[in-house]
């Protein structure tokens, strides 16, 4: 068995027993990347698989993550490395600094390993809008890995990474984790510093781990979480010991389910896995399942597509060709420089969102769109506050479907947007949510993973880990999905 198939926790045990070294792991990962990502199958989880240079601090403390390679999404800054957000407009830009999460990983001895592919500026749910071309789903290369952190999820599922960092603005960690059959955690807004994460929608973005199992997720979040004086929106709260949450009894816990179903859009197999099998599993473990209602959740996608593009239109203004990245070499005037650089540098989806956002922020439309959307956002948050008075967590599917085929939704942006229907509310409310495998759809000739999502109270990631770990240990889908053939 290749060491690339191990989890971070397993590797740290092997290191402790001196049964393997960091060099052995990097060698096996290198072989895996070469065999799986570079050549024949072209999963393309990494942007430049041929030029991965593992990075580490020379002197660092011994910890569980010492010597563990972590893949990083291409919108998180690593000092001295090109960061492009999978966009032409940033090509050639080398970050002169480390994101706080990267620095924290380096400080505990982790190795930064490779940059994973993504939708351009995280605008997408399929990893197809990358300027480098799409990433494919290791469970079925005809299908998308989900997005926008598709490269991170695919690398973990394909064992070309031990664990990875992604970012989640409307489901970008959880939906690809669901499609690829791995574990994805979007922490509470403010739990993890955003310093060094290229901003998409500043009020929604969070960095989180994508891992092979729940234990690794708890391990990684424990390291990257916590207050950062460089990010005013990071919460000054103590970080609990997430690993201590694992293995505890969940008997007597209350989990809420939605009374009203998204009947049209929900795949029947996903419904059966989440609504029947998963609920039964939890009941057997002593969990009380309670119906709750989130009456404003139906507006979440509409609210999101006002708020997120509005913030994006402002955040992407800095990419103008004046200081770094791509610049139109033929521009004869300042105006030409802006127009040509942005015209050629951004892809279609980025342009669509910039135009959408600029429109909703324009005077005359601001009150009708942006301000109204922000009011509905508050309603959505209040729905969750109310529900969490009655339950400890809420469960629902991560995505209404299993991984769809490449090209299936690229011509219909609205259909693409609707694939985030279950994930977006957590970002709008700022609450944590974790996606774990809960079933397998074998009807397409391949084993396509189905994902289940637990949503929790603000800063209560511990409860989510407790639930997710108990569920995982009693279902073992992460092992049943097993190795990709």
């Amino acid at each position, binding site marked *: 068995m290749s060491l690339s198939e191990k989890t971070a926790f397993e590797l740290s045990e092997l290191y402790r027993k001196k049964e393997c070294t960091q060099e052995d792991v990097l060698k096996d990962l290198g072989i895996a990347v070469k065999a799986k990502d570079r050549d024949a199958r072209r999963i393309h989880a990494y942007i430049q698989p041929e030029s991965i240079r593992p990075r580490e601090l020379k002197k660092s403390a011994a910890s569980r993550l010492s010597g563990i390679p972590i893949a990083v999404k291409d*919108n*998180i*800054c690593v000092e001295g490395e090109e*960061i492009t*957000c999978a966009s032409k407009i*940033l090509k050639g*830009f080398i*970050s*002169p*600094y480390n*994101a706080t999460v990267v620095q924290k990983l380096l400080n505990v001895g982790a190795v930064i390993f490779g940059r994973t592919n993504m939708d351009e500026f995280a605008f997408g749910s399929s990893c197809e809008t990358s300027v480098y071309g799409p990433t494919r789903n290791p469970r079925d290369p005809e299908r998308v890995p989900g997005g926008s952190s598709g490269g991170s999820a695919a690398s973990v599922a394909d064992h070309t990474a031990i664990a990875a960092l992604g970012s989640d603005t409307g489901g970008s960690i959880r939906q690809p984790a669901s499609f690829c059959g791995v574990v994805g955690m979007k922490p509470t807004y403010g739990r993890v510093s*955003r*310093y*060094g*994460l*290229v*901003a998409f929608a500043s009020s929604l973005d969070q960095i989180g781990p994508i891992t092979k199992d729940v234990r690794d997720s708890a391990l990684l979040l424990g390291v990257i979480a916590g207050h950062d*004086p*460089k*990010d*005013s*929106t990071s919460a000054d709260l103590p970080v609990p010991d997430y690993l201590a949450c694992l293995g505890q009894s969940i008997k007597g816990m209350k989990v809420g389910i939605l009374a009203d179903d998204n009947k049209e859009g929900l795949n029947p197999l996903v419904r059966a896995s989440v609504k029947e099998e998963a609920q039964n599993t939890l009941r057997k473990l002593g969990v009380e399942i309670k119906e709750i209602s989130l009456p404003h959740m139906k507006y979440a996608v509409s609210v999101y597509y006002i708020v997120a593009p509005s913030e994006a*239109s*402002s955040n*992407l*203004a*800095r990419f*103008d060709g*004046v*200081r*770094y990245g791509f610049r139109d070499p033929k521009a004869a005037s*300042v105006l030409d420089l*802006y127009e040509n650089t942005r015209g050629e540098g951004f892809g279609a989806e980025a342009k669509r969102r910039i135009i959408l956002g*600029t*429109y909703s*922020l*324009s*005077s*005359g*439309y*601001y009150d009708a769109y942006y301000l109204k959307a922000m009011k509905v956002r508050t309603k959505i948050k209040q729905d969750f506050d109310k529900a969490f008075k009655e339950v400890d967590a809420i469960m629902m599917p991560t995505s209404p479907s299993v991984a769809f085929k490449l090209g299936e939704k690229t011509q219909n942006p609205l259909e693409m947007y609707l694939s985030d229907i279950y994930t977006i509310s957590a970002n709008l409310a700022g609450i944590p949510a974790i996606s774990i495998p809960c079933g397998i759809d074998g009807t397409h000739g391949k084993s396509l993973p189905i994902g289940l999502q637990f949503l929790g109270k603000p800063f209560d990631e511990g409860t989510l880990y407790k639930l997710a770990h108990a569920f995982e240990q009693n279902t073992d889908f992460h092992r049943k999905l097993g190795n990709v053939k």
Partner: protein
Amino acid sequence: MNYLVTIGLETHVQLKTRTKIFCGCKLEFGGQPNSHVCPVCLGLPGALPVLNREVFLLGLRAVLALQGTPSTVIKFDRKNYFYPDLPKGYQISQYDSPLGVGGSIEIRSGDKTKKNTLNPPASGRGRRKAHP
């Protein structure tokens, strides 16, 4: 036709702080080129501003000195426009929830003293126009 002359003043004041308003770079003249810059003030991708405490305190002092009302909630807004010396593509400003509002200043002209009211900035000022 009789006109009534109304003069408004927009006052810009530089604060004598040790560091810049949104990052820890030194605020002093005469350093080596590029020695007082960092990812934050260069507006590099991923960098985030953090308000200088001293700026907040000096601003508050000005609000109180002018007998204005300090706000219980203050918020910053972005004024978006493209210009080559604007690294982020927007200025960080305050529209509808500034540090303080109101207050007045007395000006003596000859033997007359007039109390001039300070106006809060009009809400939405500088927002992008839909149809320029």
